[in-house]
């Protein structure tokens, strides 16, 4: 086999594999990517039931309810303007607390209840998910170094959720 034919072969094989991979990537990106939304976004602009959403905000004070004898939990996620009810079955992360930042991943049901399959609240006492802070900042609800400008509930003090940015 000549060098030229060899090169053609390898380029052909490369195109097939890379093309296939590109196809896979594009399909996966259109179907399996979760978009970040705030409670206000969800209330104003409800997505379809198939769209995966990352809902980010603060856990509303006094909203966490656990069903006795099961691990089913409901709570509300708020961005101080609107709030969305969330239902979740499973173990909540160690740092899940009322008044703290949280990200819930899942889909919005037809009953407007957000069915979460994953709840994230990570790593240290000051942790606010970056997406949540950016979103609150963009709408003037958050200032660097100060935390929340308008408190969602009286019990959430700026020192509790601040310093995360």
């Amino acid at each position: 086999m000549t060098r030229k034919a060899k090169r053609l072969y390898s380029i052909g094989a490369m195109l097939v594999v890379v093309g296939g991979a590109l196809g896979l990537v594009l399909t996966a990106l259109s179907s399996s990517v979760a978009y970040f939304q705030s409670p206000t976004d969800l209330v104003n602009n409800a997505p379809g039931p198939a769209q995966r959403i990352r809902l980010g905000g603060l856990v509303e004070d006094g909203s966490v309810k656990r069903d006795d004898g099961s691990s089913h939990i409901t709570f509300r996620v708020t961005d101080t303007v609107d709030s969305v009810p969330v239902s979740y079955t499973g173990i909540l992360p160690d740092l899940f607390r009322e008044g703290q930042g949280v990200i819930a991943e899942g889909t919005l049901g037809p009953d407007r209840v957000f069915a979460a399959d994953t709840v994230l609240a990570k790593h240290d006492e000051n942790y606010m998910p970056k997406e949540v802070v950016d979103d609150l900042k963009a709408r003037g609800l958050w200032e660097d170094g100060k935390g929340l400008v308008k408190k969602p509930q009286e019990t959430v003090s700026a020192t509790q959720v601040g310093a995360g940015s």
Partner: protein
Amino acid sequence: MIVEIGHFALVLSLAVAMVQSVLPIIGARKGDERLMETGAIAATGGFVLIGISFAALMSSYVTSDFSVLNVAENSNSLQPLLYKFTSTWGNHEGSMLLWVLILAFFGSLVALFGRDLPATLKANVLSVQAWILTAFLLFILLTSNPFERLDPAPMEGQDLNPILQDIGLAIHPPMLYLGYVGFSIAFSFAIAALIDGRIDAAWARWVRPWTLIAWIFLTLGIAMGSYWAYYELGWGGWWFWDPVENASFMPWLAGTALLHSALVMEKRSALKIWTILLAILTFSLSLLGTFLVRSGVLTSVHAFATDPTRGVFILCILCLFIGGALFLFALRAPSLAGGGLFAPISREGALVFNNLFLTTAAATVLVGTLYPLVLEVVAGQKISVGAPFFDLTFGPLMVPLLFAVPFGPLLGWKRGDLLGAAQRLYFAAGCALAALVGVLAFTGGTRVLTAFGFALAFWLLAGSLTDLFLRAAFLKVGWRTGLSRLLGLPSSAFGATLAHFGLGVTLLGIVSVSSFQQELITSMAPGKTAEIAGYTLSFDRIDQRPGPNFDAQAATFTVRQGGVEMTKIETSKRFFPVRQMTTTESGIWTHWFSQLYLSLGDPSPDLQTIVVRIWWKPFVTLIWIGTVFMGLGGVFSLADRRLRVGAPTRSRRKAAGRDAALGAGA
């Protein structure tokens, strides 16, 4: 005082690295041997200096010297001694210091063990190595000085992040860095060769051991990190496709491809340009990983501090080195002569196939990791790319690659016989078919994908052993002679077999856990029982246990099977008052290769019951045992005399090759 010595040693090492960046390469240009020799001295001296600096930081951690800002922020006098040691790199500044320490370590290894390298190549390699070292030392000294003082010193430190207070921190980061940073040697060799404009099969033989060492450590480091996350986070998962995990996985994929392509270059002197490019790309991905993890663009347990200037600094280093390397590559690559020809169906062809799929897979992981960052900058949209994306892209790309693995070693160089190789794989195909039928029968024909997964795993396991079996010719010469022939095979043959076998073991674990794991989340009170996978777990008690720097709530369970007590499992939640943080300590019982995994959730408001999460994870440990096989395979390949530079003379090597050829043909 010790702290100042450490700081001074670090500044001095920067000066040494700057000298090393310039003198040896000028020496190589001018053919001045004395200038070239400065490289080895500077590399060793630089390593000693950074070693002193690292030891100084470590000593201030061990003695809890809170007048050092870094120590005050990341340590506590109550921490157990082991964690005082490991706290040294459990933070941004310290981990960067560990990074350059290992970089300098590899540089000094080249200086010490590279005696048989051509003097100009060695000088160039050491200079390129010093460029990287200079950049990162500047980064540390300008943006992340670990020796900054704090005045007045606080009485007590702020404690290490509780998640990191684990034996894993002692092992995972150093191992991972030995891998990550070890690829810098392959990079330096590639750049040195491009500067020289000369490259041949010997180059590949020099580079391969370094790549192998880095690869072994990276393999084990990633596996260790995976197991640590598995037992520490209490989520029961072993891989999350988290960007930080991907950051270490991409260099692994590219490094694996590099190992295979360097093989072609060494044996047949083909794929030169591609191998050089891969060496550059592999370390570029290591640098990219460092950027992703250390710059704070991602929030994770690995991102210790988020200071924008640091991110920009690393980004500049990244662009400089990757851009510069690729520019040099574009300039010089066309002048590198091509090597031996080969047919598409051949050992070389199989290795090209391997490279094609591995690099494409690395590219899809790269897309999945960077796409959210790019989209946020460009369109301001925030998305997350998680496991579903990677399952859809990475998974399908691995299937043809894994299927092809057993064929590779059975194909001859230059021109292979696919039909012949397929015939020799009858036994492996039989195993795969048996697994397929067995799983289908076991699940009542409902789990077709699972069955194919098992079939692929057994195909890999049996297929990888086939090569050794045939080379020993057990069937032809009988067991006794066969065994002695087996022991006479070059250790690289064992290396490839072990690594491929390990891949099969890991795949078996992955398929088994993802298809047959059982999960039970339930709210339990002491005295109650739960059933999972034929085991009965009774919740004995929950009690308070004070630790050195935390308070633990420990729950004890008794596991019974058919009424017989098998073991007790303890799982706990730890509360760290200094950081006001809770961590989950999962309780794990390993039974053969499977595990029963328990973690605690929240207590009910009346404190009468507590949520318990129980998993049965069949054959889960195979995932990590497989990586140990892969690492062992690397060690065997490394031990091969062919790679011991200067050890075998040309004639002896040829004779050994002839024996092996005869053995394979007989």
